[in-house]
Structures are given as structure tokens and as C-alpha cells.
């Protein structure tokens, strides 16, 4: 049995995808736009990178294909939607905790003092 911590650290791309899906099911293009908006344009996903990450996450059981669809006239039926799994939520949470600890450590060593003073 692998614990959620066994999956961390996640690649930034994977973490961002999990964050987007935690807010609701989405298709590929929506994930691209959402991560771009979330990171203020810093993370611009290209389709290849996105779907390879989605493949990895699916294989690791952190996300799955979703059966849910919006009402037909809202969108193209053929699009594939992705949803986060329970395991995915745990891993994302574990990753967030790991990052929070890192920030704590940085703060303790006074690295952020200068930054936060601004």
C-alpha cells in the first residue's frame, strides 16, 4: 500500500491539474485556461504536456474520466471530462501540507522576512 505521501512531491503541472479538478470536473482546454488564470499566466500548458500529465495521473489513480457532462447545448458531447478521485484529493492535500511545511521552514530561517516586509 502506498501512502499519499508516497506520491509527493508532485510535478507542478500535476499539482495544478489536481487543484483545478478539485473545484469540479473539467475538460482539457478548460484545465489549460484555468491553470493559466490561476497562476497569472505563469504556467501555460501545451496540449502534449497536459495530456501526458493526465495520462500519468489516470494511471496512478489520482484522477479518472468523468461521466458527468454539462447540458448538451452547453458543450460538445465528444469532449472527455476528467474528475479527481478520493486518492487524488488526499495526494493533493499531502502535497499542499508538504509545501506549507517548506514555507514554514523558509520563514523560520528568516528567508522571507525581506519579502514579506514589502
Amino acid at each position, binding site marked *: 500500500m502506498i501512502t499519499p505521501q508516497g506520491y509527493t512531491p508532485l510535478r507542478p503541472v500535476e499539482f495544478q491539474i489536481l487543484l483545478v479538478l478539485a473545484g469540479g470536473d473539467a475538460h482539457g*482546454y478548460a484545465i489549460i485556461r484555468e491553470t493559466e488564470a490561476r497562476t497569472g499566466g505563469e504556467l501555460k500548458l501545451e*496540449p502534449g504536456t497536459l495530456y*501526458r500529465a493526465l495520462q500519468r495521473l489516470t494511471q496512478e489513480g489520482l484522477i479518472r474520466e468523468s461521466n458527468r457532462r454539462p447540458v448538451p447545448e452547453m458543450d460538445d458531447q465528444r469532449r472527455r471530462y476528467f474528475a479527481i478521485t478520493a486518492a487524488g484529493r488526499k495526494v493533493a492535500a499531502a502535497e499542499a501540507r508538504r509545501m506549507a511545511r517548506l514555507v514554514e521552514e523558509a520563514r523560520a530561517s528568516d528567508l522571507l522576512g525581506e519579502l514579506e516586509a514589502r
Partner: protein
Amino acid sequence: MGGDRLPIPRTAVWVYRILLLAYPRGFRKAYRRDLVETFADRFAGVRRDHGTRALPAFWLRTLRDVLTNAVSERLDQVRRLVTARRGGGNPAPHNGQYTTHTKATLMDSLWQDVRYGFRSLRRNPGFSAVVVLVLAVGIGANTAIFSAVNAILLRPLPYGEPDRIVMVWGFNPGIGREVASLPDFLDWREQNDVFSDLAGTSVRTMTLTGRGEEAIRVRGAQVSDGFFRVMGVPPAIGRAPAAAEDQPGAGQVVVLGHSLWQQRFGGDSSAVGQTIELDGTDYAVIGIAPSGFVVPRDADLWMPLALDVNQYGRRGDFLAVVGRLREGATFEEAQTQMTGIMARLEEEYPQTNTDWTAQVVPLHEQVVGEARLPLLVFLGAVGFVLLIVCANVANLMLARAAARTNEIAIRAALGAGRGRLLRQVCTETAWLVALGGAVGIVLARFGLDALVAFTPADVPRLDGASIDATALVFAASISLGTGLLFGLAPAVLVSRTDINAALKQGARRATDAVRGFRLRGALVVSEVALAMVLLMGAGLMLRSFIELQRVDLGFAPEGVMTMRVSLPRSTYPDSDARWRFYDRLTERVAALPGVEEVALASDLPGLGGGAYLSFVIEGRPPPTAATSMVQDVQVTVASANLTETVRIPMVGGRGISERDRAGAPRVVLVNETMARQYWPTEDPVGQRITFGDPQEEASWRTIVGVYGDIVNEGLDGETYPEVSLPFAQAPQTSASLVIRAESGFAGLIAATRREVRAMDPNLVVFDEAALADLLGGLIAQPRFVLAVVAIFAAAAILLAAVGLYGVMSYSVAERSGEIGVRMALGATQGTVLRRVIGHGFLMVAIGAVLGTAGSLIISRLLASMLFGVSPSDPWTFVGVFVVLSVVVGVASYIPAVRASRVDPMVVLREE
């Protein structure tokens, strides 16, 4: 989420689908539809939000995405496979898309193919070397040119948020773009709210003295407050001038350029706070610009503009204006607002501002400017060469595939599947492309170095060109494209090979060989067509270049040496002091051995650059807003014997003489164009004009002579009206010595320098050059473009000839049986020769017809680069056709002779 679906970009999706072939099959099968959908959405989104201009960058990103991820995915597969084989467990539950077993066989057989491909290439080292080399030349040339294009056209400018920087020009329909006057600029700055900052700049050369070192000339940029904010580039050390320092009377501060700082202070940061002496005035160094920052116009240092607006008129245009668009403002808004401001100024100051409006130009467009067209021409030409390379390599591959039909048939008979055979051909192609690409990248490095070395100096930004990651991605993708192009034909041929027929009849008779032959004929036709287009381009440029060189300069620059001396206002405050210096200097230089004549000139003949001044003719109404006439003329200042020194003929009146001194009646010479334009029916000699206030008697000058027109607006421009004032009556602070000497320019420069030093050790002699060399610079760009296009055209015709030769030899060998029969039946060597050559010419004729159609379309794009020759110049067509025929004749003669020597007995016995 997707309520805003955009139209599907069909062509783009089609291309993307092809790119997706790079991914391994499993991944492709699972995600192709999603990838394509996502791609289409993004493509449409980018086009909607950023316009088609953003698409090249988008494609590059897409290409990089596909290539890197396809490679990674394939590596991942191999890794998974290796882990599986070692019996190590996959840490994550695999979804079992495809079994380990099929993957193992797939990998094994792929590896086999790769090795087999390499072996078969090694078996034919000559063939492989030729193909790799031809490919390398094509890929290398394309990569080199692309790198230049990338550096100049595509790469963003090295400033902060460069997309928001613009230049603002005054614009008059009769004159074109013009720099701005100080009052206009200040009004622009006051009244706009589209720019976060707007700055006026003006560059002049100054003399840097002091610190016990040799005096040098530097380019000083006077910039108004906010210049560094506009560029988004703060000084690397110290600070930029403050607003308070940009006031009349203040402003004795300076920011040093990086290279001047290195040169004068050895890169010591304590330079900030010290003073330097420029044109005899002390300036405090307050900052150092970052390395590479040299705007505007190769500036060595920057100082506040600090000018008093009351001393400048609205048509005293000297400020180049740059602005930074406020957050969210667009070019269109800026243009609209500037037009509005200029309309108000026009109403308020009709005397000076009638017909003047403003133009907002993105800085990138401004910088790239004239380099764009030649570059795109290069890119097109080199692309054509690559296409010909593809056709040629495809030809070679086809010939080999046909020759190997037997081998392939045997392998098929032994159980190799059709897919497997196809894959073999593909791995061979992959090897060739990979090697060709690798060698091509090396060639590209040299090609780019050569390109940079031979480019005329005025091409912007080329020094930043290098074979970087983008260029490598480009090289990789064109290699891929090339492979697809030339690998396709043999693959098709292999997949259609009829095994039974091939085995039964032997390779040479297989019907597929005939089909291959037809395909090869088609390839040769397209090669000839492409080469023809390139030859036409080169031919037109050659004609245009010859015409340019034929232009009559109107004077004789040979044997004339020039150099420049400037006088600082601090030590030479008035006209008298300046004239005394220059007069004595010319006397001393005239006395040097070997010197025939010496003259002084504010601007060198043939190179333009004189100031434009508006003038009034005595007895005629002054140009007013009502007539909305622009009446101005290029003014140069020259000493008495300039016309003799450079051999400009006088066509009326007299030249400037020693009598035309400061106190004497004020006189002026006009050129022929000026005389014709303003006095078409009268004699201009004796007429009076003024550049000053017509009410003031002292401002009037009498025309005493008319001199012959000389080139003054570039070789391809019309001559503009021009006047020449006597130097003694208008002594300049800076002048060129124009010296006609028997020989020994180097000694002359040294001697002149000694004379200048002897008169004033603080002065600098600079811009030493032979006048003929300076004029040669006028044809540097056309010569360069011609040279590059000619090289490509030569490569194209050579490749086409090689292709033709290959096909002809092959067809002769193929048809030796038929030829033998014909000869046995009484055909002479002559008829065989004619038939074979005729066959070659048929292919060329078809190619030439297609090529002519192509060149008629494409030469129109060249029209603006041509001079004195029409884009459909019949003589160029004839010339190109002759060249083509000769090359074709040679290429088909050898195989034809071989055919005519066929011994019918030998052939018939073989049958």
C-alpha cells in the same frame, strides 16, 4: 464552460494531426481526439485574441510541445518496458492499455530496423554521403537564414515590455515622416493620456576630453525626462536623470554607456560621481547604462535635453520621439489621440502646422523596417532550395528502391510483412535525415557566421543571431518535414511492389520501376520549375544591380579622401573663430605633399544629409498655409573650390570664389533641379532668396551660379533641389575636409592629423574615408541581397542539373534494350542522341513553363527591391532560359552519348 465555441481551423488541425504522428501509437490512440480538440480551441483563441501575427510563435510552441513530449513519452515507454523486463514492478497500477508482450516485440523489431537501416547505409557509403551532404546543405542553409530572421524579425526587442514602446513621428503628405519639433513634442506630452511616458531624443557627436587621455568622438543622446522609463531599461549602476535636471540651465549630468564606461573608466563603478568633459563643458556622471543598451542610434552616453522651448520654432524638427503605451492602451487609441492633438495644433498654429499630423509606429516595426523584405526573400529562396533538395533526395531514394525491388521481394517472400518493409524504408530515411540534420546544424553555424560577416552594417539586430534552441527546433522540424517529403515516394513504391512479378522478372523489368521512373520525371520537372523561379529572382536582381551601378553620380569621387573635424563651442564660440581655424587648416593641408585640391563641406557630396530649410523667393509670395505649399530645400555649405575638387560641372553663372567672404555680399549656388523647378523659364542667376526673415534685407542671398545635379537621395531616388552656401559666409562647427590627392591616403591622414594637432591638441580627426568607398556603401545592400540570392539560385540550378542527370542516366540504362533494337533496325547514333536529349528537353520545357508562371507571380513581390527593371523583364527571361538550356544540355548530353554508344549486338544477346 464552452459556450463560446469558435470556428474550427481546418488546415491547422490537419497539420497538427500529422505532427501527432510523432507520439507512440498507444498514447496517440488514447488521446488524439482530445489533443486535436484542445489544439483547435487554443488555435482559434490565439487567433481571436492576438491576430494572425501571433500564429508563428504559437506554431513554434506547438512544435516544441509535440517534439519534447513525443520524445519523453517514447522514453517513458522504454523505461516502463525495461522495468517490466527486469521483473521490477510498476509502482503505480497500470491501466493496461497495451500488453508488455506486444511492446517488447515492437521495441525489438524497431531496434532491428534501426540497425538494419544503418547497415544498409554503410553498405552504400557513396550514396549515403551524397544524400547526407545534400540534405545537410539544404537544412543548414535554411537554419542559418531562419536564425537571422529570428534574430531580426521575431525575437522581442531587449527592452522592458517592448510591445508597448512606440515611436511618434510628425507626418506631412508632401514630405513623409519627420522628427518632431520641441514645441510640438511638449504639446504631445501635455495633452495625451495614452502614454505613460513620452520622451524626445536627439543625438549629436561630441568630443570627450580630459582625464589626461586622448580626445575621442562620442555619440551623445540628449533625452527628455522619462526616456529610461519609456525604454523600460533603468541604468545598471546609479540613476537616470531626474525631471528637475531636464530644465534649461540645469542638466550637466550624464549617464555613460556600458562600453564607454569600460573604455574610459575600466568598468570601475566609482565612475559615478566623477565628472567628464564634453565639448569643453563639465558633466557629472550619475549612472551607467546596462551592457548592450545603445538607443537611440548607437548612443555612447545620455544627458538631459534641458532645452528652452522659447528658442525653438514649431517647424524646427529635430526630436525623435519614443513613447510607452499606458497599461491597456492600444496603438489605435494612441494614433487616434495623436491625430486629434495634431488637428488642434493645426487650428491653433496654421502658419506652421497646416497639413502636419502624427504617426504612431510600433518600435519593433521601426527597428526591423527595411530589413523585412530582403529577409523574407531569403527565406523564400532558401525554402525553394530545400524543396529541390527534397526532390533530389527522393529521386536518389527512388532509384535505389527500384534497384532493390528484388531484395525487397525476397524479404517479403521470406515473411516480412508489408508494414515491416515500410518501416525499414522509414528507418533508413530517419537515419539519413538525422545525419543530414546534424551535419546541417554544423553547416548552419558557419553559414550564419558568413552571413553576419558579409551583411552591410546597417542591418539591425543581426549581431544577436545565433544557432539557439529555437533554431535547433526549427532545424529538427524541417528535417522531419524533409524526411516526410522525400521518404514518402520510396515508401509508396515499396508498399506497392508486386512480389510475384518482381521475383519472376527481376528488378529491372518490374512495372513498378516504370512507375517510379514517371514519378522521377515529375520530380525533375518540379525541380526545374523551382530552380527557374530562383534564377529569375537572381537575374532580375542582377539586372537591377547593374542599372544601379550605371547611375551617373554627377561628379568624380575617385582619388578623393575625406575626414571630419569638429570645433567645440567653448573654444570656438563664434563664426569668426571657426572660419579662422578652417581657413588656416585648409591652407596647411593644401601645402602637404601630393595634395592637389582641398575643400570644406558641411555634408559630403552624393551622400545627402544636408539640413532642409524653407525659403522665400524675392518677388514671389511666401509659401503660406493658404497655398499649403511646402517650399524647402536641402542646404549644404561648401568652400570655394568644392565643385572643382570633386569635379561637379557648373552649368550657369560662376562658382563660389575667394571673394565670397564674411563681409562680402551674401551669395548662394543652386543645383539644376532647383533651377528647373523654381525658374523654369527664367535665368535663376541674379535672383534672390532668403532662409530668414524676408523683411530683413541682410538675410537675402543672391544666386550667382547653377551647378550640375549630383545624386543626393540615394542612387535609386530622384535628385532633390539643393543649394550650396559659401563656407566663409556660414562657418559650421563641424566640417569635412575634401582632399583630392595623387596617392597615399594613409600618409595623408597621418599628416593631416599632425596639422590638426599642431593647431589645437584637443581636436579630433574622425570619419576618415575615401569618398568612393563611402558611395560604395549606397549599393552595399542590393549587392548583398543579390549575392545571397545568386548563391541560392546557383545551388538550385546545380541540384536540378544533378537530378536531371540522374534521371536521364537511369532512363538510358533502363532503355538500353529498346535502344539496341532501334539501332539494329537502322537508327543512327545521331537519331538516338537527339531522341535522348529531346526527352531531357521535354522535361525541362514543362518545368520551364511552370517555372515561368511561378516567377511571374513571385517577381511581383520583388518589385519594390528592383531598380530600372520591370518584374517581367523579357531579357531576364531569355537569359534565364539560355542558362537553363545550357545546363540541361550538359546534364543530358553525357547519358545521351552513352546511349548512342550502345552496341546492339551486346544488348540483343543479353535479351
